[in-house]
């Protein structure tokens, strides 16, 4: 978290401990803080403040959007359209709705990780009540054509949700321009606290609350407010908005340097996701013949923290569902590494990665039985698929 965010949160933890629902002066002060936080978050999204519902994070916002919109319209239809590369907060909420009798279409993506608007148009039926397509994918960083989808959804009168957890604060996000009815965001992705997020709900969009209680958040998300978290979110949103343009330019340059550097210094490596339709700081690569976790361990030993789409890091047997949906073969998906550049990263950091990574790759490849076998073609991806 950013120190400025910690400072305002501390103030609410130590001095400003009031409950915004109380009438006394301490409570009124808290109410003022809550209103300000809502305004700041709303400004970042181009929304009126009253359309922002605070939640316990991106996961809850996604659940509230998907289930809330489905339940509210179940007399209208039972069909939902989403994509195969959503975050599990959306995917598993859809799975739950399937168990409850809703029908869900999971749109495929191209090798670049982007859905086709034609596929979407084809999937829409008279029963379709909700479309949920993420703005930016959390693993590969590709940007979906949300405006185009928003236009279609609005013309057809279908509720449209986007999970913007990965785009807010990284690229411009404006609920009017995107033509969305529901949009999820999360504080910790913009250097705010964990466990805080929000759902934008356009005026007139119906959602059924998932929990019942007091009257907070206009009854759509009751419960006494997490004040330190919310003011921290507000502060983080304010800073993100102020710095957005400059930070985008800076990170895009760094990202390009990193991608170019990797592609030119390591052979048999590929970039995952669209080459340019991606958020500024996102790099996801697959390095053939070696496995992701071992690359991460190598990087970690050098003080570089990355993540991987390999099964070994996710605790399941399958590698990333996103890479598989993009048609990346299993053994190549296992060798994927995701590097995220953020506000603390500098050009020296990128140069350091470019110095260290090729050495790690060389060492691991020298241990790998696959680098040798490639010439024997014993390990073609086709054969692999048949194994599975």
């Amino acid at each position, binding site marked *: 978290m950013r120190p400025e965010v910690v400072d305002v949160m501390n103030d609410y933890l130590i001095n400003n401990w009031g409950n915004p629902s109380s009438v006394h002066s301490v409570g009124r002060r808290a109410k003022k803080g809550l209103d300000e936080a809502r305004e700041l978050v709303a400004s970042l999204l181009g929304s009126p403040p009253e359309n922002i519902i605070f939640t316990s994070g991106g996961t809850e916002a996604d659940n509230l959007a998907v289930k809330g919109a489905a339940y509210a319209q179940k007399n209208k239809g039972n069909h939902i359209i989403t994509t195969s590369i959503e975050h599990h907060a959306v995917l598993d909420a859809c799975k739950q709705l399937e168990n409850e009798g809703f029908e869900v279409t999971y749109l495929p993506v191209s090798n670049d990780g982007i859905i086709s608007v034609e596929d979407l148009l084809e999937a829409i039926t008279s029963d379709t009540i909700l479309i949920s397509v993420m703005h930016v994918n959390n693993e590969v960083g590709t940007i979906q054509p949300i405006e185009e989808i928003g236009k279609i959804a609005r013309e057809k009168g279908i509720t449209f949700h986007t999970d913007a957890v990965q785009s807010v604060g990284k690229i411009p996000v404006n609920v009017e321009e995107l033509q969305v009815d529901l949009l999820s965001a999360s504080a910790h992705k913009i250097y705010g606290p964990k466990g805080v997020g929000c759902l934008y709900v356009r005026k007139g969009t119906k959602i059924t609350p998932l929990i019942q209680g007091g009257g907070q958040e206009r009854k759509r998300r009751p419960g006494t407010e997490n004040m330190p978290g919310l003011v921290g979110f507000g502060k983080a949103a304010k800073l993100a908005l102020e710095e957005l343009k400059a930070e985008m330019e800076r990170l895009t340059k760094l990202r390009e340097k990193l991608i170019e550097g990797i592609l030119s210094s390591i052979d048999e490596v590929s970039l995952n996701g669209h080459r340019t339709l991606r958020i500024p700081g996102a790099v996801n690569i697959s390095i053939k013949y070696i*496995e992701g*976790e*071992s690359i991460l361990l190598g990087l970690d030993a050098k003080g570089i923290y990355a993540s991987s789409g*390999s099964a*070994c890091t996710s605790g399941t*047997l399958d590698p990333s569902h996103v890479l598989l949906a993009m048609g990346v073969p299993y053994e190549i998906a296992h060798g994927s590494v995701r590097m995220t550049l953020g506000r603390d990263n500098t050009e020296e950091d990128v140069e350091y990665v470019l110095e260290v990574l090729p050495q790690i790759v060389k060492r691991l490849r020298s*241990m790998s039985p696959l680098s*040798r076998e490639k010439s024997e073609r014993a390990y073609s991806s086709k054969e692999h698929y048949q194994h599975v």
Partner: protein
Amino acid sequence: MYNEKVMDHFNNPRNVGELENPDGVGKVGNPVCGDIMKIFIRVENNIIKDIKFKTFGCGAAIATSSVLTEMAKNKTLQEALKINNKMVADALGGLPGNKMHCSNLAANALHEAIRDYMQKRKVC
């Protein structure tokens, strides 16, 4: 996540590589899981005189392969066949629970290599 001993074997793996004209080769692996291990052995007078490995896989996969080659070297084939995956994990001071299954296959690869040798020699 991994203890020091595992990290040591990952960072300084013993007996990495291949043997020229090995007496036995064993390969196990699971592409879904993302681990492939290959063990090469040289046998003299029923004893594993030399052993090397190549592994595609996570930190645990590399460390188990490495420690296994230490355990098997200079053992008789009968002794080597008694080495099992649990013994390999124990020799490393334990592995995280989710790594016990798919990344701990080195002993199987060794057994495959010994079987390969025996088949070639028709000693079974």
